[in-house]
């Protein structure tokens, strides 16, 4: 935990920053939704209607 980043480095980095995290988060959330839909169509619906 050395001294914090200098302002120039921070500025350089912040030009790109949320793109990587955005891509990673979108990927994981997409996977979660795809997984949910897979379970919904392939396992849940074929198991029969219950009301």
């Amino acid at each position, binding site marked *: *935990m*050395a001294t*914090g*980043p200098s302002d120039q*480095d*921070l500025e350089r*980095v*912040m030009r*790109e*920053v*949320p*793109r*990587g*995290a*955005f*891509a*990673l*988060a979108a990927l*994981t*959330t997409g*996977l*979660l939704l795809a*997984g*949910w839909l897979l*379970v*919904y169509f392939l*396992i*849940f619906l074929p*198991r029969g209607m*219950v009301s």
Partner: protein
Amino acid sequence: MTHARNLTFAHLWVAFIAFTIALVLGVWQMWARSPLPAPFLTASTYFSSVTAHGTATAYVLTTFMVMGFGYYVAETALARPLPAPRWAWIAFALGVAGTLMAVVTILTGRAAVLFTFYPPLIASVFYYLGLVLVVAASWIWCVLMLIAMGQWKRANPGRPVPLAMFATVANAVMWLWTTVGVAAELLFQVIPAALGLKAEMDVGLSRTLFSWTLYAIVYFWLIPSYIAFYTMVPQAAGGRLYSDTMGRLTFVLFLLYSLPVGLHHLLMDPQQSNAFKFLQVALTALVSVPTLLTVFTIGASLEIAGRLRGGRGLFGWIAALPWERPMVLATGLAFLMLGLGGFGGLINMSYGMNAMVHNTSWVTAHFHLIFGGTVVIMYFAIAYAIWPTLTGRAAPSLALQRLQLWLWFIGMLVMTLPWHTLGLLGQWRRVATFNYADPIIAAWGPWVIVSLIGGVILLASGLLFVYNLLEFNVAREPNAEAPGALYATAVHPPARVPATLNGFRLWNALVLVLMVLAYGYPLAQFFIIKSPEALVHRVDERR
């Protein structure tokens, strides 16, 4: 650090002792329900063990960890001594007394009702009084946190409360709201029955009151880990917190949406109506928003650190992160488990879809991955981060700490992945001995053994964790950093935060509105339609 050093030390040791006991019991339970013959196995010993395992993890490990870490945050983040430390020690004593009372009652086999109580099964009154003492201790802690923040705000008018403290107080406010449910159930239904004052109970009402607590309590456990994500991880990775405002909003959203959603634990219950189940499922869907926000905000904070260390391209920053630091490694593993556990949770909450997995090993996998995984691995990381401050000595071996974190991650996956398939196949919960002669159940045997191996790895990791903490006492180099150095600063340290994000008056009002709308009729219905009551079945009396 004046009063908090000993307070945090004492609380965390009680938490980790309870944790170790629960770990050993957990592995024995996995062995008992596997095809391999296990010693000491009777229905009474098994269900007493499940009660002890649940009580030790859900009530003792978590409450003491939240309180201990809260004292640490209050003193280091606010940089002022804790108000009324005497009351903090009184609360500690109450909590330990309550824990001992509950544990002794369980060990004498008079409390085989599991930690989520199943009225009309009623245990010895001392089990419930023990839990009431632990909750009372946590209430005293909540008041201390509110006073600490109030004093700090009077001393620093107009300035934003440090995020770590804001989150801790949000947790305290949420805990005060949510314990209303279990306190009402215990004081008006369960304890009178345990004392023999009542011979029958309204089971529908008690399940609904417990559901009021049962969901927000998991966020009470979760928030210390999220405090570590927001305030310690960016600093440990050598970066900045991406957005302080969004951090505050996330904790407020947890406070708002973790409370009026408890009915998703009762989706398969007959006594609650479809309409209110649907309403609370819609609100539960919103609870995933703060978690997804956290994934993005912490991802961005780590991206800053990764790029500062030369990470290139869309995902290059991930490899560039300092994975050799335990806090960073723990965060990566925690998010992987949160993803898997969150996936399980999305299925659980989906209204009619819950019928596919309710009370199966799928649900067990969900909460072991999120509570046992994400939350507990961050408890480890927090302990490793603050132990140098508490003991005044630098960490002896980061390699052993990393090994312990990896073992916990691997053990958790090996244990919980088979549970997902077993849950879909129909393996139901809380079984002391499976009938492996039945062809359907026989097919599960090998998978149960695989998850038992996962359990053994977790036990090894848990014992290594306690060893790592003890090793601090023999370490020689003094601790280098000042306690305050652990907290991250934001890209834009907030000079001015809207009043709504600096206090809880608005949010308390909104929570009240939400609770009345979401839980109003579901609770009132038991007083409108005179629902018949069930005879008390005592598990502590001679036949």
